[in-house]
């Protein structure tokens, strides 16, 4: 079998006929470990756990029991998502030796569905970054251009799926951390509606913005994985008690007559190749019978400022827990309690985490709350309102994911503001909490992938998948 070209459907067809789950897991682990030197996509592999799960699938098959929709499928998990007994570092020195005492709900659900966890993927420290260069364990390289970044913060998950070392992967998205690496690596990445997937066991970065979502090499696999992990979880009070539809049914639906909005604010700062590819993608959708309307989302220009206040404010309090007491690492300079806090955090956090803790603490500090945090929340309301109003006249919004394709390693690392500004098109959907995804939309002359973003109303992932499925079937922008 060729692990790198498998889909969930192909695993389902082959399992018990061409290969056993144990054979597939063994080959997937071998291939992933061999490929990892190129990209550094994985921080660690989980052969024992994978082979035990594969054996359970094989036994179910032998007994004639349904082993589940993900039976035998090799899955990679971003290292901010907790896995019981399996070190989970969040890309941080601080958690280098942290072994979670429980599994995230999303992990429980995908393993119950027969999925095989093969390893934990590299990411920006505590999911803070747009290039995966903020990992304490070295950057991930883009499998399609090794001198370039895979995007971030879920760069390892995106790279794993692109390389084909996992069939699907889980990532997390706070301001674009699934969609942007998906677009840079040429795979499908989905940020579901806020509340659609339980965050129990997702290391908190910015709680009003954090999501877990899937990466896959095609739209259907992403839909199957999302369906598996979605739905109410009593362990996460912010998970929504909304019915989870069968997304795979919607993929084959017709898109003829769908009204699409193309926001003019999302088109002005693109590189010319990205702009051309998005235009070609939109033309394909028109050919499929969609009606495309230019729309305006006027608050877009204020999204970065609003996001970097809200996200850092929340991060500064979420990261307060890393105090040298509970999470494995304590500084040598811990003569007093105050020194233990200050030195453990000062030595443990990388530069980007510190920068965000500083910014978040500053905007929440005495005298600044109204000017920054409250103002940012009001602007966030305007951004969300802009989407609500747009969805009165259109069924979905299409837009670029990033203003440019994957950039070179080191290119933006010295300029944090430039790095933040590159998140402009993904941050708006995150602030509104609506479902959004990146679907491959052709490649530049240099062969770098570009992603098209599809955004829909709260809990309307079905329309998003329908559009993405039709676009993929039509051949994308190629």
């Amino acid at each position, binding site marked *: 079998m060729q692990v790198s070209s498998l889909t969930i459907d192909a695993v389902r067809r082959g399992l018990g006929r061409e290969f056993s789950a144990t054979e597939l897991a063994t080959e997937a682990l071998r291939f992933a470990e061999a490929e990892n030197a190129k990209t550094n996509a994985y921080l660690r592999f989980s052969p024992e756990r994978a082979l035990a799960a594969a054996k359970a699938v094989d036994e179910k098959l032998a007994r004639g029991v349904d082993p589940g929709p993900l039976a035998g499928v090799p899955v990679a998990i971003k290292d901010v998502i907790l896995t019981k007994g399996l070190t989970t570092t969040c890309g941080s020195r601080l958690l280098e030796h942290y072994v979670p005492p429980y599994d995230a709900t999303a992990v429980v659900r995908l393993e119950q569905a027969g999925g095989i966890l093969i390893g934990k993927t590299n990411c920006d420290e505590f999911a803070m970054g747009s290039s995966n260069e903020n990992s304490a364990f070295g950057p991930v390289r883009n499998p399609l251009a090794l001198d370039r970044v895979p995007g971030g913060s879920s760069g390892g998950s995106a790279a794993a799926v692109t390389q084909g070392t996992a069939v699907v992967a889980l990532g997390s998205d706070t301001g674009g951390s699934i969609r942007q690496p998906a677009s840079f690596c040429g795979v499908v990445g989905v940020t579901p509606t806020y509340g659609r997937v339980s965050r129990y066991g997702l290391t908190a970065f910015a709680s009003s913005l954090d999501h877990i979502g899937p990466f896959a090499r095609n739209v259907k696999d992403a839909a199957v994985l999302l369906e598996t992990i979605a739905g109410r979880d009593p362990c996460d009070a912010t998970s929504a008690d909304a019915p989870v539809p069968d997304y795979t049914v919607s993929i084959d639906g017709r898109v003829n007559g769908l009204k699409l909005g193309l926001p003019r604010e999302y088109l002005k700062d693109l590189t010319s190749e990205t702009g051309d590819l998005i235009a070609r993608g939109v033309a394909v959708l028109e050919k499929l019978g969609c009606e495309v309307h230019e729309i305006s989302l006027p608050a877009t220009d204020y999204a970065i400022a609003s996001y970097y206040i809200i996200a850092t404010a929340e991060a500064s309090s979420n990261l307060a827990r890393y105090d040298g007491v509970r999470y494995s690492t304590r500084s040598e300079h811990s003569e007093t309690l105050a020194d233990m806090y200050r030195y453990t*955090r000062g030595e443990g956090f990388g530069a980007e985490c510190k920068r965000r803790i500083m910014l978040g603490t500053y905007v929440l500090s005495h005298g600044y709350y109204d000017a920054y945090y409250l103002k940012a929340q009001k602007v966030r309301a305007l951004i969300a309102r802009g989407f609500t109003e747009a969805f009165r006249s259109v069924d979905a919004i299409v837009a670029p994911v990033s203003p440019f394709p994957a950039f070179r390693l080191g290119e933006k690392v010295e300029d944090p503001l430039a790095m933040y500004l590159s998140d402009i098109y993904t941050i708006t959907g995150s602030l509104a909490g609506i479902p959004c995804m990146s679907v491959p939309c052709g490649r530049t002359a240099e062969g770098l992938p570009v992603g098209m973003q599809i955004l829909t109303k709260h809990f309307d992932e079905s329309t998003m998948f329908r559009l993405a499925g039709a676009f993929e079937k039509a051949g994308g922008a190629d």
Partner: protein
Amino acid sequence: MKITEKEVRYVAGLANLHLTDAEVKRFEADLDEILTHIDKLNEIDTTDVEPMSQVLYATEETATLRADVPVPPLSNQDALANAARSGAGYFRVPKVIER
């Protein structure tokens, strides 16, 4: 200047973050640049706009509550397994109270 070196040191203290002198200098410049961008927010009128503190969806008020059924918590051993220092079933920290 949006932020001074003194303020950077003050905020680092609030955040319990030990910074080197080089980091203080670096963050002073970085935060200054970012806060200057953030000033953009003053251009947009938010009169009568309610702040959005979280993402809300149409549902009943009690939709997020679960049944009040006790479940076994983490064991003491599991809860302490990641402690930097522990002893006698507790987390150990540097002495806080002088005798």
